[in-house]
């Protein structure tokens, strides 16, 4: 009887070691927004601020990751006002837009052709799973050939990812 008890005790740890350790995962519809590249306004002429490289600026890049295809809309709105600026006494005219910069899957190349633009917003239907990088153009012109006053200018881009 004593030997049997010892044998059982000796086997028990091995039984425990034989237990499987599960690893579970769950793939679900998910959207992640990243800001990949800083944007900077260039000042090509006294009355203009522009994020275009040709104007001495840096075009910002926003990255969208979607885990499953067809579940989200990307909605990007370029700035229509400064969040920080010196005092401005004249009107500022804003222009801009969003377009695909790079893609992780070939099917995403169609996003630009299918995009919907209204007001300052561009909407993309994220119909392919993976990563899409969008560049956002933005430019501001002050008055009629009027020089922007010296100071720091800052504007906010709104990047939305909306479940559909």
């Amino acid at each position, binding site marked *: 009887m004593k030997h049997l008890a010892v044998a059982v005790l000796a086997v028990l740890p091995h039984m425990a070691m034989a237990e499987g350790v599960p690893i579970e995962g769950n793939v679900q519809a998910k959207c992640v927004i*990243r800001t990949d590249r800083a944007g900077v306004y260039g000042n090509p002429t006294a009355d203009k*601020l522009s994020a275009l490289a040709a104007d001495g600026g840096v075009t910002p890049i926003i990255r969208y990751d979607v885990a499953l295809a067809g579940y989200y809309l990307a909605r990007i709105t370029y*700035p229509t006002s400064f969040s920080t600026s010196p005092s401005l006494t004249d009107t500022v005219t804003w222009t801009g837009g969003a377009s695909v910069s790079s893609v992780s899957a070939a099917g995403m190349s169609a996003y630009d052709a299918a995009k919907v633009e209204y007001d300052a917003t561009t909407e993309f239907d994220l119909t392919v799973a993976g990563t899409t990088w969008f560049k956002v153009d933005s430019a501001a012109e002050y008055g009629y050939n009027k020089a922007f006053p*010296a100071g720091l200018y*800052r504007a906010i881009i709104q990047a939305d990812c909306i*479940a559909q």
Partner: protein
Amino acid sequence: MKVAIAILFATGAGAHEMTPAYPELHQSVVAQIMQADLSLFNARNDVEYYSISVLDGEMNPIQFASAQRVMHVPPGSRKDFEIYIKEVDVNRVVYVCTTSMLRAGEENNAIVSSRICSRLDGDRA
């Protein structure tokens, strides 16, 4: 004519993620109040606060309750949260969104505002 460097985006890269895409509304512990459970992951180094909003199909705000309207989510951390809405509003409610909060006046702070919206009115339309 001098114009200081004008910033469109700050350099703080990072990510904003919210799940699930289609949270289910379920009965809360309070009668006639429905609840949805969500989770937000903040990998943005430049943002620590996120606001919650509940919206109808036209993006108009709808009354809701939550432990906090503005959540403190330190970079690299996840926060689970619940929203509560009145049962009578269930048919109007479409989106629950979290929006990154940007601090005014901080020149090195990020200035991309990210918003992610999940749908409360059922699975993919």
